[in-house]
C-alpha cells in the first residue's frame, strides 16, 4: 500500500517537471466571505420579488409545484391540500425549531399522522425508528436554507433536527421558505457557501448540503423522461409572504 508521503512525492515530482506552464488562476474567493454574504443579503432584501418570480418560473420548468401563502398559519392547510391530493396518510417533518413552526398539530387535524424529527436525537434506536417512519411516510416537510432563483433550486443543510431522509424517502417533498432565503445566482450560492464554511457556529452543523432541482428523474430507458426513480416523485415549494 502506498503511503501519503510517497504518493504526494510522486505527484510533486511530476508537477515540477511540467514544461511550459502558462498563467492560470482559480476563481477569486471573497476576501471576507461573511461581509460578502451580508452584501448579497442586503441586495436581495430589495430585489426579492424579482428573485421569487424567477424562482417560480424555473422551479415550474423542472416540474416543481409552487404555492404562495400569506403567513405561517396558512401553511398546514396548504400541506393538507397536497396530502389530500395524493391520498397521503403519513408525514415526516423536520424539528419545529429547524422548520420555524410546528406543523404537527394542524396537520394532525388535517387527518395526517405526523412524525416530527427531534433535535438531539441521535442514538441507533432513534435512527432506525426514524428511517422506518420516513420510508413509510408519503409526505416529507422541510425548510430550505437557500432558494436559488436562477435554476429553481432548493438548498437544504442537514443537521440536528434536520434528517437527510425527510426530503428523500417520501414520495412527495414539501419545502417551506420565506423571502430571506432567496438568492439569484449560483455565484451568490458560492459566496454563501464560503461564508458558511468560515462561520464557526454553522460550519460544523451538519455534514450534508443538498441542492434539489425538481423531482428525482431519469431518462435511462430509451431516453424517456420518468420522474421519481429513487427520490421524491413530486416537489412542492410553499412561499410564506409574511417576513
Amino acid at each position: 500500500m502506498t503511503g501519503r508521503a510517497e504518493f504526494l512525492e510522486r505527484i510533486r515530482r511530476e508537477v515540477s517537471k511540467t514544461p511550459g506552464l502558462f498563467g492560470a488562476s482559480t476563481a477569486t474567493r471573497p476576501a471576507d466571505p461573511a461581509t460578502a454574504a451580508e452584501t448579497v443579503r442586503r441586495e436581495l432584501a430589495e430585489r426579492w420579488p424579482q428573485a421569487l418570480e424567477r424562482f417560480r418560473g424555473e422551479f415550474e420548468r423542472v416540474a416543481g409545484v409552487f404555492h404562495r401563502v400569506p403567513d405561517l398559519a396558512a401553511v398546514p392547510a396548504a400541506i393538507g391540500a397536497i396530502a389530500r391530493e395524493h391520498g397521503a396518510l403519513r408525514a415526516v417533518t423536520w424539528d419545529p425549531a429547524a422548520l420555524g413552526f410546528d406543523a404537527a398539530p394542524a396537520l394532525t387535524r388535517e387527518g395526517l399522522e405526523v412524525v416530527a424529527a427531534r433535535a438531539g436525537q441521535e442514538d441507533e434506536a432513534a435512527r432506525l425508528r426514524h428511517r422506518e417512519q420516513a420510508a413509510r411516510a408519503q409526505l416529507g416537510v422541510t425548510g430550505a436554507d437557500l432558494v436559488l432563483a436562477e435554476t429553481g433550486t432548493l438548498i437544504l443543510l442537514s443537521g440536528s433536527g434536520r434528517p437527510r431522509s425527510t426530503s428523500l424517502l417520501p414520495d412527495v417533498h414539501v419545502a417551506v421558505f420565506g423571502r430571506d432565503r432567496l438568492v439569484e445566482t449560483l455565484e451568490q450560492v458560492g459566496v454563501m457557501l464560503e461564508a458558511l464554511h468560515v462561520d464557526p457556529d454553522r460550519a460544523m452543523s451538519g455534514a450534508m448540503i443538498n441542492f434539489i432541482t425538481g423531482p428525482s428523474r431519469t431518462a435511462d430507458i430509451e431516453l424517456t423522461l420518468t420522474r421519481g426513480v429513487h427520490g421524491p416523485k413530486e416537489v412542492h415549494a410553499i412561499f410564506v409572504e409574511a417576513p
Partner: protein
Amino acid sequence: MSDALLRTPFPERAGAALKDKFLQEALKIATTKFIDLRKESFAGFPQGEALRDRARAIKEATLQHLDVHLERLADNVERLGGQVHWATTAGEAREMVLRLCRDRGVRMAVKSKSMATEEIDLNEALEHAGVTPVETDLGEYIIQLAHEKPSHIIAPAIHKTKGQVAELFSRELHGEFPADPEVLTAVARKALREKFLQADMGITGANFAVADTGTVVLVTNEGNGRMVTSLPRIHVALIGVEKVIPSMTDLVVFLAILARSATGQKLSSYTTLVRGPRRAGELEGPEELHLILLDNGRSRQIASTLREALYCLRCGACLNVCPVYRQIGGHAYGYTYPGPIGILLTAMLKGNESVRELAHASSLCGACKDVCPVRIDIPRMLVELREHLDREKIAPWTERVVFKALRRLLLSPTAYRLSATVGRLAQRPFIRDGRLRGLPLVFGQWTKTRDLPPVAARTFRERWKELR
C-alpha cells in the same frame, strides 16, 4: 471490458456495431437528443462561454499545484472525521475497499454511478470476495442485471430497448413487466429501495472534491447518490486525483456548465455536498467516511502528452458529437471510457499500446473540442498520440513505412513535385466516376471504405506560374 471482446480487432468490433440495426437507431436518437438539449441550454446562457474559459483555467491552475490541493483536501477530510487512503494502482484501490468490507463485516454495498469504480473493475472484485455490489443508477442497474458494461458515460444503457429491459426485469426480478419505461422505473425503485435500506456500505465516485472544505460533491438526477451517502453506515468515495478543485467559489463555476453540457439541464436534480461523516447531533448519515484518492496512471500525464485529458469532467458531450461514436457506440471501443476523450483516458490508464487501433478511431473533425465544457484539445492529443505510437514502434510496420515515406516527400520540394507527376500517371487505372477507388497494396486499406479525389491534371504550383 472482457478480454474476449478485446481479442477481436477494433475494425471487427466496429463492424459488428455498424450492422446492429437497433444500436444504430438508438445511437442516432440518443446522441441527437443530447446535442439538441445541450445547444438549447447554452443558447439561453450568454455567460456560458466565459464560464467555460474560467473552468478551464481553474483546472489548469489546480494541476499546476496538484500536490498542494490534494494535501489540503486530505487534511480537511481528516479534520471532519473522514479517513483518506492513497491508491497508486487500481489493484491497491480494490484492496482498500475489500479490506474495509472484511474488517467491517460488509455483505452488501450499494453503489451510485461511478466511472472510477468501473475503471478498477471493483464489482468483480467485490463479488469474488463475497460482497454483493448493487448498482443503483437505473442505467447501471440494467446493465448489471444483463452482465454488460456501460456504453455511454452518462447514459450507460442507451443501447437497450424498453422491450429488452422488460424482458430482463421479468426474468431477473421474477414478474411479468410490460415494456413501459414508467412501469419499469417503478419496478427498479421498489427493488432498489430495499437495498438502500439494508446495505452496510455506500460506494460512490465524485464529480468534484473541494480542497478548502474537504467536501465530496456528487451530481445525480435519480437521487441514488443521496441514498448511498445518507443511509448505509459506511460511505466510501473513490475519486481520481484530478477531481480536486480548490474552493466553493470554483465549484459553482463548474456546476453552472456541467449539467448543461451533459443533459442540457441548468442543474441536475441533485447536487450533493458531503462534508465528512455524520456530525454530532445528526440523526442520519454514515458513521464512517473513506476517501480513496486514485492515481492509476494519472500523475504520469501531468508533465506529459495527455495532461489536458486530466481536465475532463466526464460529461459525455464529446461522445454525442463524435461521428465515430455516433456510428459505433461505446462498447466497440472496448474499454471503460468510450468516445474521443475515452481514447485518451484509456491511453492514460492502460498505456499507449492499448490504443494502437483506437488512436485512429477519429476523423479529427474537432467537434469534441468545440463542445467540451473545459475546451480540451482532444484532436491535438490524438495526433500526438499517433506520433508516439509511431515512434514507439507500436503502430503496424506498413503504417510506419508509409508515414516515413510521406515525411520525406513533404520535406523536399523536388520530391513533392515529382510525386505529383508520378501520381497523375499511376492513378489512371483507378479513377472511376472522377474518384480514386480500389487502390492496390496497402493503399487499398484506405479505398476499401473510402474514395479519394484524384491528383489534379494541373497542380496549383503549375497554375500559379501562369497566374502571376
